[in-house]
């Protein structure tokens, strides 16, 4: 339901555009807000209701292909654990930032969620989030 907190034990996936990667490596820019954005778009893997990581990634690819104008050949998927991201940023950021991950379903994307309490000038927070990336996959099959 919209606004529900995503539990710390859950996992989120972030679509990383090719411009947010360098030599195949995801960069901190993947975790920065665009001007005017309120939250960082992610998908909650547990809300996809798939049987395992492989099918979750396949499902994410389908969502991206439906929602986005194009999925770049060098685009990546970053998988993170909600609790790890929140704790790391809370304990290591200069202002002890308390990030929130909230469910924000969309009609064609029911698992869509957002990372809230970010600001546009949060390079340091973006670098901290980057260090918590657990797995990466190609966004195109």
């Amino acid at each position: 339901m919209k606004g529900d907190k995503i539990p710390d034990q859950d996992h989120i996936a972030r679509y990383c555009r090719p411009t947010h990667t360098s030599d195949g490596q995801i960069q901190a820019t993947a975790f920065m807000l665009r001007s005017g954005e309120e939250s960082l778009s992610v998908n909650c893997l547990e809300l996809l209701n798939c049987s395992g990581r492989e099918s979750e990634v396949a499902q994410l690819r389908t969502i991206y292909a439906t929602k986005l104008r194009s999925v770049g050949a060098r685009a990546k998927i970053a998988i993170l654990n909600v609790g790890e991201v929140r704790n790391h940023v809370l304990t290591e950021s200069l202002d002890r930032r308390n990030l929130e991950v909230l469910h924000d379903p969309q009609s064609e994307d029911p698992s869509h969620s957002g990372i809230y309490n970010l600001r546009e000038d949060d390079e340091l927070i973006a670098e901290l989030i980057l260090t918590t990336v657990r797995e990466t996959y190609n966004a195109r099959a």
Partner: protein
Amino acid sequence: MPEMTLPSHDRWFVASQKASIAYGNKFLVDDPASREPYSGAWNVEKAQYPLKKVSYLPTPTVSQEIPDVLFSGYRKIEDPFTQTNLVEGDEEQLQEIIFKLKTSPSLVCQEVADRLLTLFRDAKEDDPTYIGIVLGSLRNFYNFFQLHTELKCPSISLTPDNNIYISWRAKKNRLFSIHFLPKADVRFVIFKPNDRHPEKQIRLSGTATTDILKEMVDLHGVWNWIINEG
């Protein structure tokens, strides 16, 4: 025959011509001369300019096609001030800067140019109507690299607003990242080991102008691990 009043001098046209510099290969300087109206200010009061009387035909049988030359010269602007033209003009300047890097004798600059070109193409693929890389950010980045030719090649990516963001990562969890903003400012992040407490890391972030960035971050020993040795 009815009469209408129009400004006797084409000052508005002169101002419009100035604005068209944005399409060329020069910087857009939004600094109109004090006696001319600001190029974007179309509602300048008429009383500022001497007026003269111009005749026109009131009949609807007059051709409805737009004449080649209008009364006050607006028609002389062949190329309207559109976003498309701005993007095209900026793209030429972007390519010019990347070309300068590509033809530089420095191998690092050539590598950087290749990377920027890839980013530019990726950004255009993502949104063909957008400029790709913010010109001001690229200029800022270019000036930084011209100022410091001894740097190692960094990882380069674009922020969601298409500014340039570069990072160097080194051993012992060292990180130095720079976000090149469209003017001459940068925001930076430093992660480095805490020598007295090896289990901890020192993290800093800040804002500076590009020209003094080295002085600011050198206090933290950053330059030693982002320059090419020898």
